[in-house]
């Protein structure tokens, strides 16, 4: 069983389109994340949700909107896609955000978005 699953794995689309990437985790974790990995492999956090509530919202264009219908799902919707949005987007989850406990992240396999 895949612990953190993302769909689609590959997405090729035209500039200006709107697209969504879905993420589901079956680990019973409370916290989910979206990371963006650019062409230089740099990983940057975009959003974090804890029990369906937004707790981290880094400086990301308003065109990116996360939605968490329940704590097992965190979807990423992107409006008006631009060339610079091309990247691999990783979903992740962790049991907790508490530093004292140490929330190890489990990552999905990534969704490679190519904007033409």
């Amino acid at each position, binding site marked *: 069983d895949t612990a953190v699953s993302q769909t689609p794995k590959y997405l090729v689309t035209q500039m200006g389109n709107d697209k969504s990437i879905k993420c589901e985790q079956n680990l019973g974790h409370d916290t989910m994340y979206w990371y963006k990995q650019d062409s230089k492999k740099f990983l940057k*956090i975009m959003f974090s949700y*804890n029990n369906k509530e937004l*707790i981290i919202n880094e400086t990301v264009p308003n065109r990116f909107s996360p939605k968490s219908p329940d704590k097992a799902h965190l979807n990423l919707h992107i409006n008006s896609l631009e060339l610079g949005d091309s990247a691999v987007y990783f979903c992740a989850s962790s049991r907790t*955000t508490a*530093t*004292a406990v140490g929330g*190890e*992240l489990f990552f999905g396999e990534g969704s490679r978005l190519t904007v033409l």
Partner: protein
Amino acid sequence: AQSVSQHNHHVILSEAASLELGCNYSYGGTVNLFWYVQYPGQHLQLLLKYFSGDPLVKGIKGFEAEFIKSKFSFNLRKPSVQWSDTAEYFCAVQSQGNLIFGKGTKLSVKP
């Protein structure tokens, strides 16, 4: 703002050579430390982690890392690398629920 620095961008080694990848972070409070590995075309997987206790942490596949608090460092080591260790290695620091990654070090092992 906290940051994570990985000094080596690309390391090329022959099989059986020893490996040490540097990682330094800037944050004065309590942190948890991680090393993740990303094999070509795959997602990130946890190699090892440090929360507290013994600063020398052993992970999977023969990797270990040592937390030196005074140097704000968490370097990754392996005594003898294999071709299958070719991958991208990411150091990460977690504080107050936020996990920040370094820019990664690409390791290429020649057979």
